[in-house]
């Protein structure tokens, strides 16, 4: 607990750093202050100090500005400072507008509503039981449930209509909050548990229905506030006095956890999960030190304390099964480690094959992680390190600030899984087939690299891979995958526009529009959907809005095949030239010359201004890009209006 002196000292530091416009410092102090204090006055103080340096937070830390509209039927104003502050802690700056109490339906249905005019990036829909399912408590009161199922369906359908209407008017991302079951009803706990149509059971079912509806709306996340209430104590979640007097939906002591959970939920609409978890071995993956305690001496398995480590291994295994890559980064003798995994196999939840890579030796861990990033063609911001050594953790934080570092609690190994679950960095709104296949794909990558080392002639090497590209409409491939690519591709991404799923649909359905994905497979495996292009014909020009490729397939001519496909289709739809655009970022230098390398000319007239964009054109009447000869192409007519395959070679 913070002392009053510490509290005042932190407030002074926040004030001073805000005055000096030192955004990083102000945020660090605000975090520290609010970690030790749950007092509304402190949250309001921080919110107002941080609001005063919103520009500095955006400029210095690259925080993402979000115009956020709150659709509500309850009092949220006292929660807003907490929400704004928690958002800053996750690197967002909210420009927040709260809708009217009674006007939520109009805001969602009317294309000229206050919401529509605000042009939000994000809409938070926070409705209470009265509005969403007002008849349920009465229908559930006898537990027999005449009409309960019908009411649940009707409520769900009503919400579905509101969401679809909102989606049809714009491309704002959406968070829909579910309902909270009351702590008790007149049926009592036994009745609530045993009667099929008790209110808590009905609310659980309605929440499931709402989540299912959210899955059918693009860029929409369901926020299960009931789970949060259960975790923190249902009996205290709502302060009935303040709810009845002022319609305050959450007890003020939970404003912070509620806000944090909201931010964590909507973050999945903006950020891809990290991709690699690097784990240390001694006192992290197992108890004890292999080099000192020996293979039989390390703690792992079914007995305490080994089962704490076994639980952690199981958690890693679960992460791995949905596509998070595991790697070992440990200072040890590699032979000892192999022996431990062989001899103690029955006591370990993981085997060495489940790791994409092992960096075992006496090298600097920062160097090991850098090598891993290179070998896997992933950015450092895709990595998480779990290590029990405070020195190693600190060294990585300093040398590789992009890596998320979790210090394993060596003295309380049972805490590690909880600590990991509290972190948002593996949160994913959807899991695609490509995620599931990732471990095999990266292993195939390593085999390809080996083959390439032995090959002399590049073309012969590429031909030996037997690459097949399949082009599809982004609407036919899983749309979630296309949106995921747009959200996370940094290196081979010519414009880095983070288009939403709704915008992809617009490109696909517009006259002369193209939203094309490419799937790639070769003799080593199926890489899945790895590239995307959004383009649209305007007059005689085909404007390429977005062109990107996952970095793990770069350098095999796939980008050329993709460009050839787009060019051919643009030509068929009446375009006479292609217009490419490049917007430089810190990460995409790799593709700066992409258009020039493919015969495009610099568009000097358009590039005179300093908009940040560079434009290039290619006259399709004199040259159409062609696909490399070593790639076999399978294509389909992408435009939804006609279905015949027209392009195969």
């Amino acid at each position: 607990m913070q002392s009053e002196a510490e509290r005042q000292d932190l407030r002074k530091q926040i004030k001073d750093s805000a005055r000096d416009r030192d955004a990083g410092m102000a945020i660090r102090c605000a975090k520290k202050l609010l970690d030790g204090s749950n007092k509304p006055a402190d949250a309001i103080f921080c919110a107002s100090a941080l609001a005063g340096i919103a520009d500095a937070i955006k400029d210095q830390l690259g925080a993402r500005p979000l115009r956020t509209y709150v659709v509500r039927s309850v009092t949220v104003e006292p929660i807003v400072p907490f929400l704004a502050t928690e958002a800053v802690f996750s690197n967002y700056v909210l420009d927040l507008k709260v809708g009217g109490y009674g006007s939520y339906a109009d805001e969602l249905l009317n294309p000229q509503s206050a919401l529509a005019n605000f042009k939000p990036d994000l809409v938070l829909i926070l409705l209470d039981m009265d509005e969403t399912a007002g008849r349920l408590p009465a229908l559930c009161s006898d537990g027999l449930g005449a009409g309960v199922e019908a009411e649940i369906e009707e409520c769900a359908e009503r919400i579905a209509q509101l969401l679809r209407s909102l989606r049809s008017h714009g491309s704002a991302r959406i968070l829909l909050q579910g309902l909270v079951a009351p702590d008790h009803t007149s049926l009592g706990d036994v009745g609530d548990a045993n009667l099929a149509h008790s209110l808590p059971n009905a609310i659980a079912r309605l929440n499931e229905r709402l989540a299912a509806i959210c899955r059918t709306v693009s860029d929409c996340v369901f926020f299960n506030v009931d789970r949060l209430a259960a975790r923190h104590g249902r009996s205290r979640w709502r302060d009935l006095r303040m709810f009845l007097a002022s319609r305050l939906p959450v007890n003020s002591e939970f404003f912070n956890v509620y806000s944090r959970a909201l931010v964590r939920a909507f973050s999945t609409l903006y950020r891809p999960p990290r991709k690699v978890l690097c784990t240390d071995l001694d006192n992290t993956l197992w108890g004890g030190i292999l080099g000192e305690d020996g293979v039989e001496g390390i703690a792992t398995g079914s007995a305490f304390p080994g089962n704490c480590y076994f639980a952690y291994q199981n958690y890693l295994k679960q992460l791995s099964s949905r596509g998070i890559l595991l790697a070992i980064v440990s200072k040890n003798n590699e032979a000892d480690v192999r022996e431990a995994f062989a001899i103690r196999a029955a006591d370990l939840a993981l085997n060495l094959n489940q790791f994409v890579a092992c960096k075992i030796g006496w090298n600097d861990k920062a160097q090991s992680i850098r090598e891993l990033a290179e070998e896997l063609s992933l950015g450092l911001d895709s990595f998480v390190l779990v290590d029990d050594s405070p020195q190693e953790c600190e060294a990585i934080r300093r040398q590789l600030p992009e890596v998320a570092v979790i210090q394993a609690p060596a003295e309380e190994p049972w805490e590690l899984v909880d600590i990991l679950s509290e972190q948002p960095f593996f949160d994913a709104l959807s899991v695609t087939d490509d995620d599931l296949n990732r471990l095999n794909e990266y292993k195939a990558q390593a085999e390809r690299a080996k083959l390439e080392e032995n090959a002399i002639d590049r073309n012969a090497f590429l031909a030996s891979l037997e690459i097949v590209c399949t082009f599809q409409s982004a609407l036919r491939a899983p749309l979630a995958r296309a949106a995921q690519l747009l959200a996370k591709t940094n290196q081979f991404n010519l414009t880095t526009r983070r288009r939403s799923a709704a915008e992809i649909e617009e490109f696909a359905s517009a006259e002369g529009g193209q939203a094309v994905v490419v799937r790639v497979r070769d003799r080593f495996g199926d890489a899945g959907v790895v590239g995307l292009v959004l383009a649209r014909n305007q007059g005689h020009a085909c404007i390429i809005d977005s062109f990107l490729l996952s970095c793990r397939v770069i350098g095999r001519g796939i980008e050329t095949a993709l460009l050839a496909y787009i060019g051919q289709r643009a030509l068929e739809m009446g375009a006479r030239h292609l217009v490419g655009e490049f917007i430089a970022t810190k990460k995409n230098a790799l593709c700066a010359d992409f258009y020039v390398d493919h015969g495009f000319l610099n568009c000097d007239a358009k590039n005179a201004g300093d908009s940040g964009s560079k434009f290039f054109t290619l006259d399709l009447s004199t040259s159409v890009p062609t696909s490399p000869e070593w790639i076999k192409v399978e294509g389909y007519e992408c435009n939804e209006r006609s279905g015949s395959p027209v392009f195969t070679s």
Partner: protein
Amino acid sequence: MSDQEVPSSLRNILSDIFEIPPEQITPDLNAESVDTWDSFRHLQAILALEGEYGVQFDPQRIPNLTSVSLLQKELEKKGVSL
């Protein structure tokens, strides 16, 4: 009344909520005289005081506690030593 009569902890909280300097928080300051003292800030002030001093106000009285001195008296009545 002089501004010395508002205890500093109360003054600081109200200063955070209404975004006016602590030295301007005087006992006779009220919802009428302060632009930022609207119904939401009022609720915020109530929640902040409850959180700070560990008390609960009677919801029936909350709407009437619209000046610094009324808030202070209510806290004192609840046994808070300011």
